[in-house]
């Protein structure tokens, strides 16, 4: 059996108190393995983003256990989780979240700088990454000078620059047109081929289901089905036809 990149058991997370309380995760179980591109799909409001946040260690869950890359992050202190994210996780957000006042090069160097790398070294690696996503020669530009798809490519460069073993993406293509979305997914599925890496993507977008090695389906705060191999093809077939 493949090595587990993530395993989560019985994760419960609620927001708010009293009447305003919503139970976003109601005992979700989840598993992803190294070397795969894993999609989390499901209807709006079913808890995808919440689960992703918990798995990424950016949100503390109320109950349950989460292990990421062999570390039980639910047992770590706040500072330890922060250090863990810094070392092992790359992030790609729906809104790209590049820092507008920094150049592309500076934006991409941030994860390395956070790890304490020197500026020269960080920028050299960042330039390499930018070249890999097809943006060489534009290192000094600002994010606002780029199209959405280009910005998302910068975000991918940033997420991969420190060679994290887990890459977390929330709706990476939903702000993009179909062609650009496919370019982005090509880059991400390429990234998933790196040894020992897992790329985890939350999406609404059936057009990109075909990139998945495995799909976890969520409904109402739980993971209700996991598709891979044969069942994956039929799931994708059904989803894209409707």
């Amino acid at each position, binding site marked *: 059996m493949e090595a587990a990149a993530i395993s989560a058991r019985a994760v419960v997370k609620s927001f708010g108190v009293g009447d305003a309380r919503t139970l976003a995760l109601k005992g979700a179980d989840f598993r992803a393995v190294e070397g795969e591109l894993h999609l989390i799909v499901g209807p709006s409001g079913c808890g995808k*983003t919440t689960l*992703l*946040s918990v798995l*990424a260690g*950016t*949100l503390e869950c109320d109950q349950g256990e989460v292990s990421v890359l062999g570390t039980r992050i639910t047992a770590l202190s706040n*500072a330890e989780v*922060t*250090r*863990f*994210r*810094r*070392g092992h*996780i790359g*992030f790609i*957000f*729906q*809104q790209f*979240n590049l*820092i*507008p*006042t*920094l150049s592309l090069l*500076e934006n991409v160097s*941030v*994860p390395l*700088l*956070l*790890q304490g790398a020197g*500026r020269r070294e960080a920028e050299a690696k960042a330039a390499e990454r930018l070249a890999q996503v097809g943006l060489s020669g534009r290192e000094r530009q600002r994010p606002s000078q780029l199209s959405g798809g280009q910005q998302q490519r910068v975000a991918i460069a940033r997420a991969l620059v420190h060679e994290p073993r887990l890459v977390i993406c*929330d709706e990476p293509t939903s702000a993009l047109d179909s062609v650009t979305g496919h370019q982005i997914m090509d880059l991400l599925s390429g990234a998933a081929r790196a040894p020992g890496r897992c790329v985890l993507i939350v999406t609404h977008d059936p057009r990109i289901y075909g990139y998945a090695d495995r799909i976890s389906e969520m409904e109402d705060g739980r993971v209700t089905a996991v598709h891979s191999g044969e069942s994956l093809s039929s799931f994708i077939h059904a989803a894209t036809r409707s």
Partner: protein
Amino acid sequence: MFLIALKMLLGDRSKYWMLVGGLAFSSLLMTQQYFVFQGLLSWTTSHMRNMRASIWVVESRVDQVNETKAMRDTDVNRVRSVDGVDFAVPLFQGVLKARTADGADKMIQMIGLHSGTLYGRPPRMIEGDITQIRLPNSVIIDTLAAETNRLGAGLGRPLRIGDTFEINDREARVVGICQTERHFFGYPYVFSTYDQALQYAPRQRKMLSMILAEPKPGSDVAEVARRIAAETGLRAYTVPQLEKSTLRWVWTNTGIPISFLTTIILGFVVGVAVSGQTFYSFVLENLRNLGALKAMGAGNGLLAGMLLLQSVTVGLIGFGIGIGLTALFGLTVAKGGQPPFKMEALFLFQALAAVILICALAALFGIRRVAKLEPAIVFRG
């Protein structure tokens, strides 16, 4: 990351200039007001630098140098007889009215020096010879008195040696011009001998304003002053004592310190308000970016350090500009000593500390906000 922090701030031009401007204004207000205040305070003790004496003996109820209560002429001899006193001389000090060539009345600060010693004479003569005030109806005036709009009025030019004017219907002939430090009351100095000053001043039963004394060489000034006070029942101040007492008097009896302090505190408060507000909104606008940094593994400590660096940086730049403007003010507007202006290095450091405190406070609100920030917000649309 600290370079990144600075670039984040510099990238937001309007906030950056707002912060720098607010802090520059605050620094300017604090330092400029303080230095004018210091200048004004120094005017209150300028008598002591214009009539230098080691011991100042005054009537027992007088507690500052600008106030006089007349003593008996015989008090001079009582002071002279105190052990340790080398010599003691009378001094007349009073505000009199002088009449200029065109018949206008101008107030002057009349000083009557002991004719034999001329002890208490002004520190620097510009023209003429101080000993000439011993001649009948002769005075030495300071440069302020000589000005065209002071005693020179009616002549259309500054007063010169040989010119005359009137004090209380008596002629006063200028035999010299001296340099003085400006006095708090704003009246120019006119020096004459003690006896002539009494002639110029309206006749009163007691005319002696002060006694200036010098201790014997090698004796302790403070000790001699203490002995004079004990033996004569008068008050005897050393220079530092009288300076302190005069300043205390200004603090307790005039509204000047309070009004300046209010402005200085206002400068501080405005600085806190403007920069705190601006910086906080800068932080709020950057919350998504800060959240993204946090998600990517920036700890609270690092983010706090970044915010602090940003605010202290604008603080230092603002302070630099503010101090520059204050210095410019000192070199231009206040050049002629009007308004008075006295730079003090110590206060520059205090103002710098205040500005850094302002920045730290401003950053603190942002730091608290960022500490509470859930990095997961960046996943929300």
